[in-house]
């Protein structure tokens, strides 16, 4: 447990630094204060790409090694990734309404492909919840985890491949299109969200192991990694 507390402590610390930098960075000449949203929007989607990449990795490793740790890694990573894709979409919509004048456009390739990615990984979670046999569940979600990761480069490069409303990258190999104060703030937040990802993964995997122990799961695959069921008045 201490390891997880340390991780969350580090995450909290770096997020606090990131927040402070986001609030003290200069506003943008055209967008004003709304440019600060980039410090949540970009790190959230970075985290989602990282998470879905880890899922693909865990999926491949499970298919090769058939050890439960890889299955657990893949499934836990999807949960975190879906959450932060959602946060990225919502912060994007808030920003879009303020700066573009519209929160969404289905015709825009970046927006549409991100939404599809969100729903595909929601489908991953539904798939896991629907299959009782651990090995079958692990195998099917592993295949999905590998196939679905192709969306990550598709979403990322959509702004370069097609004509979009969403702007192209502000950070490229040959430099950035942001003033240094804004860029540093954003990168600090990317780092902070990465630490948060590690902390959330550690906690989620621990929880999955505890769930498996309670249910006596088979030793070749992980548990379902379902969102918690709320039991209340009626026991469904």
């Amino acid at each position, binding site marked *: 447990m201490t390891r997880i507390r340390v991780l969350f402590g580090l995450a909290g610390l770096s997020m606090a630094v990131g927040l402070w930098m986001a609030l003290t960075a*200069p506003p943008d000449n055209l967008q004003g204060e709304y440019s600060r949203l980039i410090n949540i929007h970009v790190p959230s989607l970075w985290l989602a790409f990282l998470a879905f990449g880890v899922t693909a990795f865990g999926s491949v490793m499970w298919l090769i090694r058939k050890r439960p740790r890889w299955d657990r890694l893949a499934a836990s990573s999807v949960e975190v990734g879906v959450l932060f894709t959602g946060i990225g979409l919502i912060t994007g919509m808030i920003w879009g309404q303020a700066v573009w004048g519209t929160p969404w456009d289905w015709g825009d390739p970046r927006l549409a492909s991100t939404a599809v990615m969100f729903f595909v990984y929601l489908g991953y979670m539904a798939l896991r919840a629907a299959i009782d046999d651990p090995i079958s569940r692990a195998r*099917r979600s592993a295949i999905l985890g590998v*196939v679905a990761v192709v969306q990550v480069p598709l979403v990322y490069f959509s702004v370069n491949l*097609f*004509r979009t409303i969403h702007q192209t990258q502000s950070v490229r190999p040959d430099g950035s299109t942001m003033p240094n104060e804004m860029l540093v703030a954003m990168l600090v937040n990317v780092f902070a969200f990465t630490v948060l990802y590690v902390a959330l993964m550690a906690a989620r995997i621990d929880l999955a192991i505890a769930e498996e122990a309670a249910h006596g799961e088979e030793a070749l695959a992980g548990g379902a990694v379902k969102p918690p069921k709320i039991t209340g008045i009626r026991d469904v």
Partner: protein
Amino acid sequence: MAHRGFILFGLGGVIALVIAITVTGISNNLTYYLYPTEAVDQKADFPDGERFRLAGLVVEGSLTETGDALNFDVTDGGATVAVVLTNTPPPLFDENAPVLVEGAWDDGIFRADSAIIRHDENYSVPEDGNYEGADD
């Protein structure tokens, strides 16, 4: 085993199909919007009333109001198109702003009923601490 394999294959196929449809749908609409030079070049392909989207910069000094509509010119450095916007513009709309308007040709001018700001990837710090949009 065979049953499982089929389901896996089917699932993978569905995902591939979704992605293929998305990519095809997007690439068919590759001319998602036209810049003024292209719009003028392709004027024959878009008869009056056929909707498309036009993107460019609002020409400084071209913005006027007549009744309920806004009149302005949109340029990409090459051609310039006269636009009449019959709806409310977005909050950050102004001269020199990058806009994306939707509408159709109407006898040489572009009659638009919606406009959004098409913000690019560039950011800049206000030089004197004040910034555009502060008073909006």
